[in-house]
Protein backbone atom coordinates (compact mmCIF):
# COMPACT_ATOMS: atom_id res chain seq x y z
CA UNK A 1 0.00 0.00 0.00
CA UNK A 2 2.76 2.38 1.00
CA UNK A 3 4.50 1.90 -2.35
CA UNK A 4 1.86 4.07 -3.97
CA UNK A 5 2.47 6.87 -1.47
CA UNK A 6 4.76 9.72 -2.18
CA UNK A 7 7.39 9.54 0.52
CA UNK A 8 9.47 12.57 1.44
CA UNK A 9 12.76 12.55 3.28
CA UNK A 10 12.91 14.05 6.73
CA UNK A 11 16.12 15.72 7.91
CA UNK A 12 17.87 13.58 10.50
CA UNK A 13 19.63 16.13 12.63
CA UNK A 14 20.50 16.25 16.30
CA UNK A 15 17.91 14.82 18.65
CA UNK A 16 16.45 17.20 21.25
CA UNK A 17 15.97 14.41 23.82
CA UNK A 18 18.23 11.98 25.69
CA UNK A 19 18.88 8.86 23.63
CA UNK A 20 21.31 5.96 23.88
CA UNK A 21 22.40 6.51 20.29
CA UNK A 22 21.27 8.09 17.06
CA UNK A 23 19.14 5.11 16.08
CA UNK A 24 18.15 6.22 12.55
CA UNK A 25 20.24 7.08 9.48
CA UNK A 26 17.39 8.16 7.25
CA UNK A 27 13.67 8.74 7.70
CA UNK A 28 10.95 9.12 5.08
CA UNK A 29 7.32 9.95 5.66
CA UNK A 30 4.15 9.72 3.58
CA UNK A 31 0.56 10.70 4.26
CA UNK A 32 -2.06 8.01 3.62
CA UNK A 33 -5.82 8.49 3.86
CA UNK A 34 -6.15 7.69 7.55
CA UNK A 35 -2.56 7.24 8.64
CA UNK A 36 0.99 8.42 8.45
CA UNK A 37 3.50 6.01 6.95
CA UNK A 38 7.07 6.25 8.25
CA UNK A 39 10.05 4.43 6.77
CA UNK A 40 13.49 4.49 8.36
CA UNK A 41 16.80 2.71 8.17
CA UNK A 42 19.72 2.23 10.50
CA UNK A 43 23.03 0.56 9.80
CA UNK A 44 24.39 -1.20 12.87
CA UNK A 45 27.97 -0.04 13.51
CA UNK A 46 30.18 -1.87 15.98
CA UNK A 47 31.36 1.56 17.18
CA UNK A 48 27.82 2.84 17.97
CA UNK A 49 27.38 4.03 21.57
CA UNK A 50 26.53 1.25 24.06
CA UNK A 51 27.23 -1.58 21.61
CA UNK A 52 30.72 -2.22 22.96
CA UNK A 53 28.88 -3.64 25.99
CA UNK A 54 26.27 -5.57 24.02
CA UNK A 55 28.08 -7.80 23.88
CA UNK A 56 31.83 -7.42 24.52
CA UNK A 57 32.68 -10.36 22.23
CA UNK A 58 29.79 -10.19 19.73
CA UNK A 59 27.89 -7.08 18.71
CA UNK A 60 24.12 -7.52 18.66
CA UNK A 61 21.78 -4.54 18.28
CA UNK A 62 19.71 -4.74 21.49
CA UNK A 63 16.00 -5.40 21.02
CA UNK A 64 15.16 -2.30 23.04
CA UNK A 65 17.19 -0.26 20.54
CA UNK A 66 14.79 -1.33 17.79
CA UNK A 67 12.10 0.31 19.95
CA UNK A 68 14.42 3.33 20.14
CA UNK A 69 14.77 3.37 16.33
CA UNK A 70 10.98 3.38 15.99
CA UNK A 71 10.53 6.14 18.57
CA UNK A 72 13.19 8.34 16.96
CA UNK A 73 11.87 7.77 13.43
CA UNK A 74 8.39 8.89 14.45
CA UNK A 75 9.59 11.85 16.53
CA UNK A 76 11.61 13.05 13.53
CA UNK A 77 8.73 12.38 11.11
CA UNK A 78 6.37 14.41 13.31
CA UNK A 79 9.01 17.02 14.07
CA UNK A 80 7.68 17.08 17.62
CA UNK A 81 7.49 15.17 20.86
CA UNK A 82 6.74 11.45 20.69
CA UNK A 83 7.41 9.41 23.81
CA UNK A 84 6.67 5.76 24.38
CA UNK A 85 3.53 5.37 26.48
CA UNK A 86 2.74 1.72 26.01
CA UNK A 87 4.20 -1.38 24.40
CA UNK A 88 1.20 -3.50 23.49
CA UNK A 89 3.15 -6.24 21.80
CA UNK A 90 6.76 -6.36 20.67
CA UNK A 91 8.45 -9.44 19.27
CA UNK A 92 12.10 -9.73 18.31
CA UNK A 93 12.43 -12.43 15.67
CA UNK A 94 15.97 -12.25 14.29
CA UNK A 95 19.13 -10.66 15.69
CA UNK A 96 20.87 -7.72 14.03
CA UNK A 97 24.66 -7.85 13.98
CA UNK A 98 27.33 -5.28 13.22
CA UNK A 99 27.18 -4.15 9.58
CA UNK A 100 23.55 -5.29 9.24
CA UNK A 101 21.07 -2.67 8.07
CA UNK A 102 17.68 -2.48 9.71
CA UNK A 103 14.76 -1.11 7.71
CA UNK A 104 11.57 -0.10 9.42
CA UNK A 105 8.06 0.45 8.10
CA UNK A 106 5.55 1.95 10.49
CA UNK A 107 1.92 2.95 10.18
CA UNK A 108 0.88 5.67 12.62
CA UNK A 109 -2.76 6.34 13.43
CA UNK A 110 -4.45 8.73 15.81
CA UNK A 111 -5.47 6.90 18.97
CA UNK A 112 -7.34 8.07 22.04
CA UNK A 113 -6.54 11.59 23.27
CA UNK A 114 -3.02 12.65 22.36
CA UNK A 115 -1.90 9.05 21.81
CA UNK A 116 -0.73 7.63 18.52
CA UNK A 117 -1.17 3.96 17.67
CA UNK A 118 1.86 2.56 15.91
CA UNK A 119 2.14 -0.71 14.01
CA UNK A 120 5.61 -1.49 12.69
CA UNK A 121 7.78 -4.15 11.12
CA UNK A 122 11.57 -4.22 10.95
CA UNK A 123 13.54 -6.20 8.43
CA UNK A 124 17.17 -7.17 8.27
CA UNK A 125 19.26 -6.65 5.13
CA UNK A 126 18.77 -10.27 4.07
CA UNK A 127 14.99 -9.83 4.11
CA UNK A 128 14.34 -11.61 7.42
CA UNK A 129 11.64 -10.08 9.60
CA UNK A 130 13.60 -8.86 12.63
CA UNK A 131 10.85 -7.37 14.77
CA UNK A 132 7.15 -6.72 14.92
CA UNK A 133 5.99 -3.86 17.15
CA UNK A 134 2.63 -2.50 18.25
CA UNK A 135 2.82 0.42 20.61
CA UNK A 136 1.36 3.73 21.70
CA UNK A 137 3.22 7.01 21.64
CA UNK A 138 2.30 10.09 23.63
CA UNK A 139 2.60 13.43 21.86
CA UNK A 140 1.46 15.73 24.67
CA UNK A 141 4.25 15.63 27.19
CA UNK A 142 3.19 18.64 29.25
Amino acid at each position, binding site marked *: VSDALSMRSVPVGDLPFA*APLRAVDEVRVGQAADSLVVHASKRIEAGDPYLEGHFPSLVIYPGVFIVETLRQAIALALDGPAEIARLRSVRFLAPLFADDTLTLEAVVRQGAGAALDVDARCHRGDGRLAARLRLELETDLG
Partner: protein
Amino acid sequence: LSILLDHAAIRSLLPQGHPMSLVDRIVALDPGVSILGLKAITGSEPCYRRLPAGGRREHAAYPVSLMLESFGQTAAILWLGGMGSAPVRDDHVLMLVAVRDCTIEGRAFPGDVLRHVARLDQVVGDNVFVEGEILVDDRRVATIGSMMAVMRPRTVLSERASAQDVGNRPEGSAP
Protein backbone atom coordinates in the same frame (compact mmCIF):
# COMPACT_ATOMS: atom_id res chain seq x y z
CA LEU B 1 18.05 -2.87 52.62
CA SER B 2 21.16 -4.97 52.44
CA ILE B 3 23.25 -5.42 49.32
CA LEU B 4 22.80 -8.99 48.15
CA LEU B 5 24.71 -8.51 44.91
CA ASP B 6 26.97 -5.53 44.33
CA HIS B 7 27.89 -4.19 40.93
CA ALA B 8 31.04 -6.31 40.65
CA ALA B 9 29.00 -9.46 41.29
CA ILE B 10 26.39 -8.39 38.74
CA ARG B 11 29.09 -7.76 36.16
CA SER B 12 30.40 -11.27 36.56
CA LEU B 13 26.90 -12.73 36.38
CA LEU B 14 25.59 -11.01 33.25
CA PRO B 15 27.21 -10.93 29.81
CA GLN B 16 26.50 -7.24 29.19
CA GLY B 17 29.56 -4.98 29.48
CA HIS B 18 30.01 -1.27 30.12
CA PRO B 19 28.11 0.94 29.36
CA MET B 20 25.29 -1.53 28.73
CA SER B 21 25.55 -2.98 32.25
CA LEU B 22 22.42 -1.31 33.64
CA VAL B 23 21.91 -2.77 37.11
CA ASP B 24 23.86 -1.37 40.06
CA ARG B 25 22.68 -3.50 42.98
CA ILE B 26 20.37 -6.32 43.94
CA VAL B 27 18.85 -5.63 47.37
CA ALA B 28 16.23 -8.38 47.63
CA LEU B 29 16.01 -11.79 46.06
CA ASP B 30 13.61 -14.64 46.61
CA PRO B 31 15.15 -17.19 44.21
CA GLY B 32 12.78 -18.27 41.51
CA VAL B 33 10.09 -15.91 42.80
CA SER B 34 10.98 -12.21 42.87
CA ILE B 35 13.82 -9.70 42.91
CA LEU B 36 14.44 -6.04 43.69
CA GLY B 37 17.22 -4.37 41.71
CA LEU B 38 18.46 -0.78 41.75
CA LYS B 39 19.77 1.39 38.96
CA ALA B 40 20.94 4.94 39.67
CA ILE B 41 20.54 7.32 36.75
CA THR B 42 23.20 9.95 36.25
CA GLY B 43 23.59 12.75 33.74
CA SER B 44 27.07 11.48 32.92
CA GLU B 45 25.74 8.38 31.16
CA PRO B 46 26.33 8.18 27.40
CA CYS B 47 22.62 8.77 26.65
CA TYR B 48 23.00 12.34 27.92
CA ARG B 49 26.15 13.06 25.95
CA ARG B 50 24.40 14.78 23.05
CA LEU B 51 21.47 16.28 24.96
CA PRO B 52 21.43 19.95 23.94
CA ALA B 53 21.58 22.60 26.65
CA GLY B 54 18.47 24.70 27.21
CA GLY B 55 15.95 21.97 26.39
CA ARG B 56 12.69 21.20 28.12
CA ARG B 57 12.67 19.18 31.34
CA GLU B 58 11.12 16.12 29.70
CA HIS B 59 13.92 16.02 27.13
CA ALA B 60 16.18 14.79 29.94
CA ALA B 61 13.92 11.83 30.74
CA TYR B 62 15.87 8.58 30.91
CA PRO B 63 15.22 6.75 27.63
CA VAL B 64 12.43 4.17 27.94
CA SER B 65 14.56 1.75 25.90
CA LEU B 66 17.31 1.78 28.54
CA MET B 67 14.79 1.67 31.39
CA LEU B 68 13.32 -1.54 29.93
CA GLU B 69 16.79 -3.00 29.31
CA SER B 70 17.68 -2.29 32.93
CA PHE B 71 14.51 -4.04 34.10
CA GLY B 72 15.25 -6.96 31.80
CA GLN B 73 18.75 -7.35 33.20
CA THR B 74 17.35 -7.37 36.74
CA ALA B 75 14.86 -10.03 35.67
CA ALA B 76 17.71 -12.04 34.14
CA ILE B 77 19.45 -12.10 37.52
CA LEU B 78 16.24 -13.41 39.09
CA TRP B 79 16.15 -16.17 36.51
CA LEU B 80 19.82 -17.00 37.05
CA GLY B 81 19.27 -16.92 40.81
CA GLY B 82 16.68 -19.60 40.32
CA MET B 83 19.29 -21.66 38.53
CA GLY B 84 21.74 -21.56 41.39
CA SER B 85 23.43 -18.34 40.26
CA ALA B 86 25.44 -20.03 37.54
CA PRO B 87 26.76 -17.15 35.44
CA VAL B 88 25.76 -16.91 31.81
CA ARG B 89 28.61 -18.70 30.14
CA ASP B 90 30.80 -16.78 27.79
CA ASP B 91 29.51 -18.75 24.83
CA HIS B 92 25.88 -17.87 25.60
CA VAL B 93 23.88 -14.68 25.26
CA LEU B 94 20.64 -13.62 26.91
CA MET B 95 18.16 -12.17 24.49
CA LEU B 96 14.92 -10.32 25.00
CA VAL B 97 12.43 -11.89 22.62
CA ALA B 98 9.05 -10.37 23.49
CA VAL B 99 7.36 -7.65 25.53
CA ARG B 100 3.62 -7.42 26.14
CA ASP B 101 1.36 -4.92 27.87
CA CYS B 102 4.02 -2.65 29.19
CA THR B 103 2.75 0.75 30.30
CA ILE B 104 5.00 3.74 30.94
CA GLU B 105 3.28 5.80 33.63
CA GLY B 106 5.99 8.25 34.56
CA ARG B 107 9.45 9.47 33.69
CA ALA B 108 12.77 9.12 35.45
CA PHE B 109 15.55 11.71 35.45
CA PRO B 110 19.22 12.02 36.40
CA GLY B 111 19.44 11.71 40.17
CA ASP B 112 16.60 9.20 40.32
CA VAL B 113 17.09 5.60 41.39
CA LEU B 114 15.06 3.06 39.47
CA ARG B 115 13.70 0.24 41.64
CA HIS B 116 12.97 -2.78 39.49
CA VAL B 117 10.53 -5.24 41.03
CA ALA B 118 10.44 -8.37 38.89
CA ARG B 119 8.45 -11.52 39.49
CA LEU B 120 9.02 -14.82 37.73
CA ASP B 121 5.85 -15.83 35.97
CA GLN B 122 6.77 -18.96 34.07
CA VAL B 123 9.81 -20.88 32.82
CA VAL B 124 9.53 -23.06 29.73
CA GLY B 125 12.84 -24.63 28.79
CA ASP B 126 15.30 -21.80 28.14
CA ASN B 127 12.46 -19.28 27.98
CA VAL B 128 11.52 -17.17 30.96
CA PHE B 129 8.48 -14.95 31.43
CA VAL B 130 8.61 -12.17 34.00
CA GLU B 131 6.29 -9.36 35.06
CA GLY B 132 6.69 -6.48 37.44
CA GLU B 133 7.02 -2.76 37.85
CA ILE B 134 9.55 0.02 37.89
CA LEU B 135 9.40 2.56 40.71
CA VAL B 136 11.15 5.82 41.52
CA ASP B 137 10.81 6.37 45.26
CA ASP B 138 7.19 5.31 45.76
CA ARG B 139 6.07 6.49 42.36
CA ARG B 140 5.41 3.80 39.76
CA VAL B 141 6.92 4.75 36.40
CA ALA B 142 6.21 1.53 34.50
CA THR B 143 4.16 -1.65 34.69
CA ILE B 144 5.63 -4.61 32.86
CA GLY B 145 2.82 -6.97 31.88
CA SER B 146 5.11 -9.62 30.45
CA MET B 147 8.67 -9.81 29.27
CA MET B 148 10.12 -12.95 27.73
CA ALA B 149 13.84 -13.65 27.44
CA VAL B 150 15.79 -16.59 26.17
CA MET B 151 19.31 -17.93 26.69
CA ARG B 152 20.93 -19.07 23.49
CA PRO B 153 24.38 -20.41 22.68
CA ARG B 154 26.19 -17.86 20.60
CA THR B 155 26.72 -20.46 17.89
CA VAL B 156 23.02 -20.83 17.08
CA LEU B 157 22.44 -17.10 16.76
CA SER B 158 23.39 -17.13 13.14
CA GLU B 159 25.86 -18.35 10.64
CA ARG B 160 26.18 -14.71 9.62
CA ALA B 161 28.04 -13.81 12.79
CA SER B 162 30.82 -16.27 12.09
CA ALA B 163 30.89 -15.19 8.47
CA GLN B 164 31.52 -11.65 9.70
CA ASP B 165 34.36 -12.77 11.91
CA VAL B 166 36.19 -14.10 8.88
CA GLY B 167 36.69 -10.61 7.57
CA ASN B 168 34.98 -7.89 5.64
CA ARG B 169 34.75 -5.66 8.71
CA PRO B 170 35.34 -2.08 7.57
CA GLU B 171 38.31 -0.17 8.93
CA GLY B 172 37.52 1.75 12.07
CA SER B 173 34.39 -0.18 12.94
CA ALA B 174 36.00 -2.28 15.64
CA PRO B 175 34.87 -1.39 19.17
